[in-house]
Structures are given as structure tokens and as C-alpha cells.
């Protein structure tokens, strides 16, 4: 294979430019805000008031429409953070480190939501808020990993070193993701198998499945929105002396 066939596409390198990323994300941000609001409102209203009750769990199954998106996002964001960190290390891209840093708080929030809503759902379903089940325990470990990444990132003042250290911890931490995913298959657990799969036909009827699809997509849009806002904030903080930013309408007001 020739060297040129390994060359990354132009847009990939453009994304590494703080100015290009700032302008591009400024255009994208309102779209993700509208999509997140629409999809989440629609999915949550459908799941709360219009989807039929489950024949076994009754109405408590409606918790699924917020619990499952939170659980999916908690894992996806951690992988995304590790990928962004790896890009930062390999291509020495500051923006990639910023994206990885922007993933931490929203990822930790989704993990906390997954744990808390899971605990509340556990009470009417299993009779207990918490059991030391493999899925629950590995998700708790994920929350601790987010806390570790957050602490490490804030403890190092030099952003480039903080970015690298965060990336390494995130990459090592991804070992927990397959453990979470396959915990229900590898161990005897109370937790049910996945409700949502990209490769298999849904096991529930469309009127129960569609609201879940909407809240999952809406959660992804909300995640992207928060990452765009936080990355733009870091660009402003680190580029405040750059002439392009001083002349930008957001700063100059012109």
C-alpha cells in the first residue's frame, strides 16, 4: 500500500484547526439544539402517555425510555472520549483533546442518570434499589472511571499534558465497556438483556420501540450539542489572544 493511500481526508485535518472548528460548530450548534429538544420531547411524551404498558412490568417499564438512552450514551461517550484522545496523541491535535475533555461531564451525567433511574426501576421490578449485579457494578465502575478522568484532567494545569494523560486513562478504561455490554451474558444477572440493538430486530412492538429510538437519537443530539458548546468554550479560552478570534463577530460584536 502506498503512503498516499493512508493520507487522512482534508476535512479531518480541517477539524484540527481551532478557527475552522469554531466556525463549523457555530453553524451546527442550533441544529443539534432543535433536534435534541424535538426528539427528546416527542420520545418522552410518547413513552410516558401513549405507549402501552408492559404485560409483566406494568407502567414501570416506561422508565426504559430514559434509562436505556442514558446507559447507551454513558458507554458511547466513553468510547468517543478515548477515540478523540487517541486522535489527539497520534495527530497531535489540540482540538481533539478539547473534544475529549468536553465529553467528561456529559458522559458522567449520563452514567449517573443510568445508575439512578436503574435503581429506581429496580425497586418495583426486583424489590431492591441496588443489587451487586455484574451489569450494575460494572456501570458503577464506569462512573468511577469518569470521576478519575475528570480529577486527572483538572489536576494538571498544562492543557496539552492534561489532554494526553486523560486520553491514556480513557483508552485504558475502555476495557470496561465490553465488560458492561457482555456482563448479562457472561454472568448470571438480574439485569435483563439489551432492549436496543443495531444488528437485531426489536423484540418489542413498534409502538413501544419507536419512543425508545427517539429518546436515544435525541440523547445523541444533546451530547453533540454539549460537546460543541464546551469545545467552543475551550477554543475561546486558549485562543483569546489570536487575531482571528478578536476579529470574530462573537468577540468584536461586528
Amino acid at each position, binding site marked *: 500500500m502506498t503512503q498516499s493511500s493512508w493520507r487522512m481526508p482534508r476535512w479531518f485535518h480541517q477539524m484540527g484547526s481551532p478557527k475552522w472548528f469554531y466556525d463549523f460548530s457555530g453553524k451546527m450548534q442550533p441544529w443539534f439544539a432543535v433536534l435534541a429538544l424535538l426528539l427528546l420531547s416527542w420520545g418522552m411524551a410518547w413513552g410516558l402517555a401513549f405507549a402501552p404498558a408492559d404485560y409483566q412490568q406494568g407502567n*414501570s417499564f416506561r422508565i426504559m425510555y*430514559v434509562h436505556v438512552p442514558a446507559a447507551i450514551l454513558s458507554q458511547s461517550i466513553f468510547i468517543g472520549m478515548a477515540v478523540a484522545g487517541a486522535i489527539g496523541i497520534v495527530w497531535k491535535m489540540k482540538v481533539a483533546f478539547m473534544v475529549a475533555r468536553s465529553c467528561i461531564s456529559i458522559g458522567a451525567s449520563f452514567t449517573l*442518570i443510568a445508575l439512578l433511574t436503574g435503581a429506581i426501576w429496580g425497586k418495583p421490578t426486583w424489590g431492591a434499589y441496588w443489587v451487586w449485579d455484574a451489569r450494575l457494578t460494572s456501570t458503577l465502575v464506569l462512573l468511577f472511571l469518569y470521576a478519575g478522568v475528570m480529577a486527572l484532567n483538572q489536576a494538571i494545569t498544562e492543557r496539552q499534558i492534561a489532554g494526553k494523560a486523560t486520553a491514556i486513562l480513557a483508552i485504558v478504561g475502555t476495557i470496561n465497556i465490553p465488560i458492561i455490554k457482555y456482563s448479562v451474558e457472561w454472568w448470571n444477572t438480574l439485569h435483563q438483556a439489551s432492549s436496543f440493538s443495531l444488528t437485531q430486530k426489536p423484540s418489542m412492538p413498534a409502538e413501544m420501540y419507536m419512543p425508545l429510538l427517539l429518546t436515544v437519537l435525541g440523547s445523541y443530539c444533546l451530547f453533540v450539542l454539549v460537546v460543541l458548546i464546551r469545545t467552543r468554550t475551550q477554543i475561546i479560552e486558549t485562543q483569546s489572544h489570536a487575531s482571528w478570534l478578536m476579529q470574530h463577530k462573537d468577540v468584536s460584536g461586528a
Partner: protein
Amino acid sequence: MYFESLDTLWHMAGHGSYVWSCYALFVVLLSINVWHAKGQKTKALRQAKAVARRNS
């Protein structure tokens, strides 16, 4: 609507407190995230404007 009235929607046959508290948690925690992110951006922009004013 699946429920016959707003009252049955609220109580959800005894599961209302579980379901509504989960939805409230989801909305509140994610709203805090967006609100905090926007607040930090406003603060950073204010500081950048101050730098630009000093340099002009």
C-alpha cells in the same frame, strides 16, 4: 393517549412516583449540563472581549 385521564397518567397504577422521578432526574441533570456549558461559554466570551478591548 393510553391513560383514561390525567389522574391515571399521574398515578400509573402505583408506579407513578418511580416513573415521574426518573423522567425528572433525566430532564434536570441534562438541563444542568446544557445550562452550565452555556454559562461557561458566556464567561469565556466576556473574558475574550475584555482582552480584545485591552489590545485595541
